[in-house]
């Protein structure tokens, strides 16, 4: 229903005298003032459930936090295996589907003759897995796309604040967190001949560049790795290289 503005509003004596209306207005503010002054504030984060005479409806954030709804996702993580290495097999599906193009992956390959390798069951692993948290739009498509349940958004955390932009470029040591996940269908559990892997911890979950298997590139030159430094590195630079 539209509000009907009248050119001839009915005003009674009280409104034309002005002062009684002023006093009534002051009474309203004073009533609010006294109620909020003398009554303790209910800190229930569900504001509609607050009890008491105090009318303040603020949730004073750092001290009081509204619990997130059950469907809340939060910061993503790289899911570790039981042995602590990432489940990721560097298939690039997440990086391909990401609408914000914030995921950058470099794949490494196990040496065929390496006895410590796991070439029987897994061929690839990420030597770099970088997410620019400033570009991520938390859509969750990477989680849906992952065939290996290797990336999840189940932490319920926010991205912590940083002083530099490069601090928001998260690599494997920061992303690999949370409880390990194992499925019966995982190849190292499924294949009868597969013994528990005898690998050395020289892959991606260790510090980047530490005991890394050098990639074999067509030119034969050693793989040039991108060092994570304190300087701002936009993730687009990874992508355009």
């Amino acid at each position, binding site marked *: 229903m539209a509000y009907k503005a009248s050119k*001839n509003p*009915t*005003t*009674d*004596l*009280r409104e034309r*005298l002005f*002062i*009684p209306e*002023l*006093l*009534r*207005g*002051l009474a*309203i*503010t*004073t009533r*609010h*003032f006294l109620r*909020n*002054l*003398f*009554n*303790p*504030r209910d800190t229930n984060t569900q504001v509609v459930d607050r009890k008491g005479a105090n*009318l*303040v*409806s*603020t949730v*004073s954030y750092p001290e009081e936090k509204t619990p997130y709804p059950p469907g809340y996702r939060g910061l993503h993580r790289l899911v570790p295996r039981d042995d602590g290495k990432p489940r990721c097999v560097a298939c690039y599906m997440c990086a391909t589907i990401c609408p914000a193009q914030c995921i950058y992956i470099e794949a490494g390959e196990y040496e065929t003759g390496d006895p410590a390798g796991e070439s029987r069951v897994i061929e690839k692993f990420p030597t770099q897995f970088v997410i620019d948290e400033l570009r991520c739009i938390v859509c969750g498509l990477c989680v849906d796309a992952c065939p290996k349940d290797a990336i999840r958004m189940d932490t319920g955390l926010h991205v912590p604040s940083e002083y530099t932009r490069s601090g928001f470029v998260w690599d494997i040591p920061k992303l690999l967190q949370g409880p390990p996940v194992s499925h019966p269908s995982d190849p190292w559990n499924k294949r009868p001949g597969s013994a528990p892997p005898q690998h050395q911890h020289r892959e991606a979950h260790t510090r980047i560049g530490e005991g890394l298997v050098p990639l074999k590139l067509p030119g034969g030159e050693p793989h040039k790795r991108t060092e994570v430094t304190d300087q701002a590195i936009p993730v687009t630079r990874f992508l355009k290289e």
Partner: protein
Amino acid sequence: MKALSVLVAIGFIVGVIFVLSALAYLVGGWLGGAAWVSNLLILLLGFVMIIATFLTLAERKWSAMMQDRIGPNRATINVPGLRGRPLGGVFHVATDAIKMLTKEDFRPKVADPLLFGLAPILAFAPVLALFAVVPVGPVVRVKFDWFFIHANSPVGLQVSNPNFGMLWIFAIASLAVYGTSLAGWASNNKFALLGGVRASSQMISYEVALGLGLIGVMMAFSSVRIPDLIAGQTAMLWGSEGELGWLGKVGIPAWGIFLQPVGFIVFFAAAFAETKRAPFDVPEGESEIIGYFVEYSGMKFGLFMISEFAEVVILAAITTALFLGGWTFGFGFDSTLTRYFTSRDLGWLLGAIYATWFWVKVLILCYVQLAIRWTFPRFRYDQIQSLGWKILLPLALANIFITGALILLDPSLRSLAVVGVLEIGFVLALTLKRAEPAGGHDSHDAHGTADAHGHATAPLPGAAAASHH
């Protein structure tokens, strides 16, 4: 629990006021004839400036409470016992002061260097000078003899008591416009100039109503000296014959608000417009032009702001002195209190109690002013001018004639008080009248009781309403 801590805080504030007032009397008694020095320091720098400083916090905190918010509570001091306790945001006073003092003091290159610096001073100085003639406590004989400090002299908490009293207020209050208009002009900025012009036109138009609103009080007590006006207000209009035990003489005092309710409204509205605070803050108008201080930063802007709050305190003090009986309790208790303390040579204690009561009234009026500022929206510019010239000025003139006639008719002021109390009662009755339920006008129309314009009004009950139109 919270109510208890609020009451403790209020008691603490009253206690601090009492201690400062007692100190003012004792030091004044020790100084003897030079008591004005201690009054100058303690009343102006101690009371007015400290209250004005804390009003900057109160404005934000109280407005938050009126609007169901929490308000400033982030500043804390990292001291054991106080850690993490905002204490009602009281530390924001310190952070604000530090911010004001350490900000860059920027002056535009095109601004007039001399006048640009002079304007904040000219805006601030008259405000403080206004308070010189306001008496805070009665003149009592301070007599003590402690070790090598002796005192035996009459002391009143008033910086100076000239025989032109209220004329000083009129004269100095109109000087404050120089600061604002100079600030507007010297900034060499269109918006500042607009703000300065608005401020000067508004202040000059309300000057008239301000003066005329107080004429009635001066006529009633036949004086312009404020202590005389307060002494006149201690008289009882209707009171008990003798004293009723410790209550003393009980009755209705001849307070200015009972004698001059119309004068009170006119004066308060006009003085409120002089302080340039909402709803009269068109010169500032932060949503349209920033106002005459748009180019000011740092402590120069701080001076404009603190002078605004000092004006609030001083308006409250003048209103208390002229209309609310000054430091007296009024309705009783005065005669026994005075006799008890003067008979024991504790004049300073009596004075301190009265001065505390004065400041309590002032603080309540400060609250009223802040509540007005946070209740009503800003007037349009033409509304301000028409309120000043078309409503307040005729109202004040009519009030002067009616007051003069009633004083001539009955020099005991009782008929004046009867009219005044009737006016107050009329306004209160209108205020408390139940609002008509929604759709009430329609039913009136259906029954044909409303006039052609749909005004469903009761017949005007007489003189009180007439004096308002």
